[in-house]
């Protein structure tokens, strides 16, 4: 029972991070109808940004997070503005291919520049734990969870309450409606993708603190983000959060009761099942 509780706590903490990972993907997918296969690679870049700020400048990873977000935002903006905007009205299949191409470029550039070695970000408090109702909660994981939740909420606020945020949401419905907000569509699209990249960067920073990184983690993370996005549902940030938490808990339970090598079977198996039975996601509105 004790063990189950610990597993659940682990799952929830992990789930928060998962949700943040998927958030950027869902934003770009929902608004721009772009299925970004390079999403995981952007997460990877965020992790490396944090790593170099930590080891090079001695910054605390949580302080480095906003910087990583800004860097990734700029990169995302440029990618959308000068590359993806050129193909955005093509069949969606084309965006799948082009983002794959970007993923390859980013991954191998990273390999060239950062080398293939595994890295971790180990702040001084990395080993600190505290007890929560009988479960051990590592401080970094709790902080990561907190930041993830905070950013999810911040995104929701941004999309609901700010003018630009509402313009972005309007774009998802109708480009003409978006123009009514007086924003140039090319700029608006680029902003959205930049925002998605920034979220990926944040997720990457947190990921680098709780796990090892190397240039190749991109594709696995993209896959995981997909699973979360589909399972939770693409309509609202809160669905993504639910999807992330669900997957985090399911993976933790699978590792405990079936075996750690089966987590992928379960994650992707649920993904396929959800697609077959309820493509709008467990929470999404019925088609």
């Amino acid at each position: 029972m004790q063990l189950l509780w610990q597993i659940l706590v682990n799952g929830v903490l992990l789930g928060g991070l998962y949700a943040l990972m998927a958030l950027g993907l869902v934003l770009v997918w929902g608004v721009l109808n772009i299925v970004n296969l390079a999403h995981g690679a952007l997460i990877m870049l965020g992790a490396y940004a944090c790593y170099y700020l930590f080891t090079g400048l001695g910054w605390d990873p949580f302080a480095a997070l906003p910087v990583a977000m800004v860097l990734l935002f700029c990169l995302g903006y440029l990618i959308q503005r000068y590359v993806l905007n050129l193909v955005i009205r093509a069949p969606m299949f084309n965006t799948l291919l082009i983002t794959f191409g970007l993923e390859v470029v980013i991954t191998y550039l990273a390999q060239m520049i950062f080398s293939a070695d595994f890295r971790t970000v180990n702040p001084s408090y990395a080993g600190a734990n505290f007890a929560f109702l009988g479960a051990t909660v590592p401080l970094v994981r709790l902080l990561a969870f907190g930041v993830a939740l905070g950013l999810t909420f911040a995104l929701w606020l941004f999309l609901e309450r700010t003018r630009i945020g509402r313009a972005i949401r309007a774009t998802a419905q109708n480009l003409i409606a978006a123009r009514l907000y007086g924003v140039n569509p090319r700029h608006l699209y680029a902003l959205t993708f930049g925002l998605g990249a920034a979220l990926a960067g944040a997720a990457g920073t947190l990921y680098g603190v709780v796990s090892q990184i190397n240039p190749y983690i991109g594709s696995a993370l993209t896959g995981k983000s997909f699973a979360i996005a589909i399972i939770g549902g693409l309509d609202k940030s809160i669905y993504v959060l639910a999807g992330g938490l669900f997957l985090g808990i399911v993976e933790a339970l699978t590792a405990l009761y079936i075996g750690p090598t089966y987590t992928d079977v379960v994650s992707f198996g649920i993904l396929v099942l959800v697609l077959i039975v309820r493509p709008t996601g467990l929470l999404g509105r019925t088609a």
Partner: protein
Amino acid sequence: MKFSTKCVLGGLAVALLATVPWWGSAVLVQFGINALILATLAQSWNIIGGYTGYPSFGNSVFYGLGGYGVAIAMVQYGLPFPVGVAIGVALAGAFAILLGLPVLRLRGHYFAIATLGLAEVMIAIVSNLEIAGRNVGLILPLVKGDALFFELALALLVVSTLAVAWISRSRFGFALIAIRENEQAAAVMGVNTTVYKILAFALCGVFAAVAGGIHAYWITYLDPGSAFDVTLNIKMIIMAVFGGAGTIFGPVLGAFVLAAISEILAAKVTSLASIFFGIVIVAAVVFMPRGFADFVRQFRHLGWRYFQENIRTYRV
């Protein structure tokens, strides 16, 4: 070019290729085997993605089932290679029918994601199977000489291309194309879309499985990651699409050209080669989204404006 002329040229090309193992260097022969297998995979994708319009991101499953069919048959049961291939094909067919049924009901990118999900699940499942050697994999009996594998791979490519050629001029193929162009209209006009989609999926699975079997036997080693290599999916799609999806020779052309480019660059820095490959993909999607075949066809009257037109049509 008349059809009969194409046939003669094709036959000559095949005959010429068949002689390569006797005068080519070892490196050329190895490159050839890889390229031929990739070309077959591109053709197999062509059937479900190009002709039927269902972009599968999970053909690596069939490839892996073929590989493991051969490996398990030969290593665990001592059966000969052809039996192994038959088993791999049977597995692929069963998979196509059982899982095709629910998954082919999905449209467009949902179908793509579902097949990608299936591909990932298969890797994970096979990594846990004792009979498949779990994560460690299996080692197959060694056969000396690449010539055999070259000829096998070539024969497979020829058969798969002939199958695609038959599709392009048969009632069966017409049904697939109708499904691609407008599935609802096809259904109302008497096409049993479910059966045709599954048959197309199974046919593509068969070719991918045999390719996987040949590959496994050739490299004599198999593990879940390499057998069900997910990146193969995107490679075969890119080769088929850039060569020209929905054409007979497009995927073959696309495979050979892209494999050659890859090989030439890999001789230099590997990362640089991959980066270049990625840039080529991005550029091709921007400038030549409908593939090389379409480019060739339209370049005659549009010239360089072809590229401009593509961007103008698809940009924001």
